[in-house]
């Protein structure tokens, strides 16, 4: 049959849901400067801690995963801001000098 697309993050997320996991999807919605992943890049996070895809070069995935777990519980989407002006971003190590916004939503 037709071949799979290389990175089917949503397909992976759907499989996790089918296995009974809570899942949230994080999507890069805006970038400025030297952000490593373009708008539209996705990271799927499961309640058990599984990750698929990425929203940065790896520097903010931890913080996004924490926010994802909140959203899984509350059901309320979040719009996260990462950048030089953001103290938290430095804490989580967005050292590349880029800025980005990440939208986090529950898959439910």
């Amino acid at each position, binding site marked *: 049959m*037709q071949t799979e697309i*290389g990175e089917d993050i949503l397909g992976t997320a*759907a499989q996790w*849901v089918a296995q009974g996991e809570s899942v949230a999807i994080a999507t890069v919605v805006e970038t400025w400067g030297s952000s490593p992943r*373009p708008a539209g890049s996705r990271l799927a996070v499961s309640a058990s801690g599984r990750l698929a895809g990425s929203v940065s070069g790896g520097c903010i995935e931890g913080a996004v995963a924490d926010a994802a777990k909140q959203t899984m519980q509350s059901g309320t*989407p979040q719009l996260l801001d990462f950048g030089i002006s953001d103290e938290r971003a430095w804490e989580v190590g967005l050292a590349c000098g880029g800025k980005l*916004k990440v939208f986090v939503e529950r898959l439910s």
Partner: protein
Amino acid sequence: MTPALLKRLQAAQAEKRPVALLTRLSDGAQALWPEDAAPAPALEEAARAALRDDAAASITLPDGSAWFVHPHNPALRLIIVGAVHIAQALVPMAQTTGFAVTVVDPRRAWATADRFPGIVLIHDWTDDAVAALAPDSRTAVVTLTHDPKLDDPALDIALRSPAFYIGALGSRRTHAKRVARLTEMGHDAAAIGRIAAPVGLNIEAVTAPEIALSILAEVVAARRGAALGQRAAPQMAA
């Protein structure tokens, strides 16, 4: 995102229909255009532009609401003519990179499910096969048979298509002869100049996987408009 919307998005991708996911960032409300009507004319315009440019966009409507416009185009396609050793290396690399891959080779001993598990294999003659696949501007065509009677008919059809990349395996001398043949078939220098030959970036590739890597790198460079994807004008055959 609701599971129902995810299913619709996956169905559109499986059926190769371009769709744009529209998300209101304040509350996560979503629509899948064009199956769902765009909630505002500006969103419909943004969805069209995002699909055309294959680039996501954030927009703010006159009412102050912020939306994310996320295009989901069908996968880029790679048509490989020649079920050869290099093709066996190229197929998984191209799939990982996000290409939907089809292998064309009328030689059934080469194009076997054993050598290409899970891949669409077409055994028709190469011109008929490539014509039926109808390369569009999101398609790359690479000929690897090294046999003019198989490569040339495929190139003849590819050159009449808007394929964004056309590459042909073979040395400079082989290509000079190919240029002469394609000229006889009625292709002018500008058309023949579209063919990347010898195929792939010059990374002094030796092994089949290395050659596959050089080919895929040049396909990506062409797709992304990188300088490495631009070839100098080809030499005409003597």
